């Protein structure tokens, strides 16, 4: 008997004994649905937790400060800042050449005087830092848009603000959209000698529209703008004389860098390479390692629950098929009496088990994804109530393949014993047994 004939016979046998097949498929469906739902929730939750740890930016991001590293820098996730150290294009080129580096994004921040719109009880002016980043590649930055959008790269009349800005202006953090469209006047000071010989200050004013509200960890500061705007302000400041410690001239072309490593495993080596160049760095590698360890425990526990469900389903398949073998002894005997070999009979029963597993796997995977989506919707509603960003359901193809393939393989394993038992039944069963 060919495989196609055996498959056809198995299919007919499974579909025409509908009630029994449905019950067995249902057991597999529920088990695979549980496993797929758990796997989907775990994968989604993991990415959410890791995203939180990496502050919304790439998980492999390393922050570099325009300062020398103090001893023991690599033993901690935080900066250990020493004396100032210039970061320029040559520094960026040098780091880009290092092994394991995917991208390098410059950061430049300056202190600004901002005049926000008048709000009852709000400040008339704010001294804050303006953070300039390369907005052509926002994916390289630890920036999460909470409302609106990022400023367009190269424009000097758009800005994004942080939740800290909303707090300063007594705006509702749960309703960040209200800040959008407002205009803020911002100025960086230039220090020049006056006619009397004393120092005088003058500002270069820019009116920017708030186009987005963000959470950002590129550098401390409430205003996120294109790096070109901050570079213009820096050049303006450099044309002045500086004011010692109070208003020092920004000597370094960039105040920091965001270096993105190829993989999580490369982060430490890249940090080491940057450390060799003398720069202080910060990356949540130890925090991520600890979080991953805990997540691994959660994976194992949830995986074990799913596996127990699958084993129970497998036992259900074995039991149902053993019952079928008992009930179909005469039919099996007749198959042999008309010339079927032991392996033909075994093949039919194995394929029948595989069919049940595949059907349960497909239905279970679909049900599992739907269940995970429903759980995700409930979680998102809760997160929104807490003022937190929601999760995006992540269903890797591997989960779908494993859901269907795993259930089929498990059913085949579960069907092995009944199939062997059927194959070993003597042909004399055709005449009712001896």
């Amino acid at each position, binding site marked *: *008997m*060919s495989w196609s*004939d055996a498959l056809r*016979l198995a299919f*007919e*046998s499974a579909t*025409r*004994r509908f009630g029994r097949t449905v019950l067995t498929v249902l057991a597999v469906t529920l088990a695979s649905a549980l496993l797929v739902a758990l796997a989907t929730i775990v994968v989604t939750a993991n990415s959410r937790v890791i995203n939180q740890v990496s502050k919304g930016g790439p998980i492999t991001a390393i922050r570099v400060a325009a300062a020398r590293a103090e001893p023991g820098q690599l033993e901690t996730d935080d900066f250990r800042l020493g004396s100032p150290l210039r970061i320029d294009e040559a520094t960026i080129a040098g780091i880009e050449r290092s092994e394991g580096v995917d991208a390098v994004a410059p950061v430049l921040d300056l202190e600004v005087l901002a005049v926000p719109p008048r709000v009852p009880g709000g400040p008339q002016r704010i001294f804050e830092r303006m953070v300039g980043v390369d907005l052509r590649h926002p994916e390289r930055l630890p920036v999460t848009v909470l409302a609106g959008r990022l400023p367009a790269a190269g424009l000097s009349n758009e800005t994004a603000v942080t939740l800290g800005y909303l707090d300063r202006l007594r705006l509702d953090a749960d309703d960040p959209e209200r800040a959008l469209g407002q205009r803020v006047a911002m100025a960086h000071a230039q220090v020049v000698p006056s006619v009397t010989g004393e120092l005088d200050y003058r500002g270069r004013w820019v009116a920017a529209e708030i186009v987005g509200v963000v959470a950002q960890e590129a550098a401390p500061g409430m205003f996120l703008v294109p790096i070109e705007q901050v570079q213009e302000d820096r050049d303006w400041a450099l044309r002045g004389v500086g004011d010692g410690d109070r208003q020092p001239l920004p000597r370094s072309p960039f105040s920091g860098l965001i270096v993105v490593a190829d993989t999580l495993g490369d982060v430490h080596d890249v940090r080491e390479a940057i450390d060799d160049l003398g720069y202080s760095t910060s990356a949540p590698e130890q925090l991520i390692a600890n979080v991953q360890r805990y997540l691994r425990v959660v994976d194992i526990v949830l995986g074990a629950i799913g596996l127990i469900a699958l084993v129970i389903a497998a036992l259900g398949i074995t039991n149902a098929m053993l019952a079928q073998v008992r009930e179909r002894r*005469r*039919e099996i*005997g*007749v*198959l*042999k*009496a*008309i*010339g*079927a*070999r*032991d392996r*033909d009979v075994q093949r039919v029963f194995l394929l029948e088990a595989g069919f049940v597993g595949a059907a349960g796997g497909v239905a279970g995977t679909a049900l599992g994804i739907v269940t995970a989506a429903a759980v995700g919707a409930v979680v998102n509603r809760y997160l929104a109530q807490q003022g937190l960003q929601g999760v995006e359901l992540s269903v890797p193809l591997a989960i779908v393949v494993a859901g269907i393939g795993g259930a089929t393989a498990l059913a085949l394993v579960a069907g092995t014993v009944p199939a062997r038992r059927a194959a070993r039944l*003597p*042909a*004399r069963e*055709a*005449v*009712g047994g*001896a």
Partner: protein
Amino acid sequence: MVISPRDPRAPGVTVVTSGLRHTYPTAGGDLVVLHGLDLEVPGGGYAALTGASGAGKSTLLSLLGGLEAVQEGVAEVGGRSIATLRGDDLATYRRETVGFVFQHYGLVPVLSALENIELALSLTGIDRDERRDRARTLLASVGLADREHHRPSTLSGGERQRVAIARAMANDPRLLLADEPTGNLDEQAAAQVLGLLESMRTEHGCTLIVVTHNRSVAERATMRLRLDGGRLAA
């Protein structure tokens, strides 16, 4: 109606047993069912096996059909000892040499009449179109062309047995064994089935051995063999 065999074959095989002995283990010790049975049915012959229940009729048929292993003695079909056949060789013997008709019909309940016949043909590896054509011809030869999509549960007893005969003839057997083929049928259906078996024997030239309790059935055979206590009665 004449069915063209798949390949030309010699007429029915000669069946010979000598000193055939068979026992079944029971709680009370071995139960001897056949006591050194000697018989011969010539090629193309038509033999009726009769005897009381427990006389060993069905056991003899199972041994000749390769459903049970020969324990002791000689059993030759077409000059070939079936006692030496094992595993795939035994399956090939059952598939190519023997056609079996059971009292309980032995049809696969989830398959239609046509599919039941195709099932037997599928074991020989012939292609699907040829298989279907041959199954249709066989079904028509037993007068059930209009029942091809009916499952066994929707057929009468006589119709089921006719489908079973068509299936038994699917691979053009040289030995047709029928175990109480009319045992579950009314008189009219029994006569129809018996007539069909006889015409199949005539058209295909196969040897026909029928186990029956029915004297009128036995009287239609050219050879009547009565078993008594596992031996051939005089």
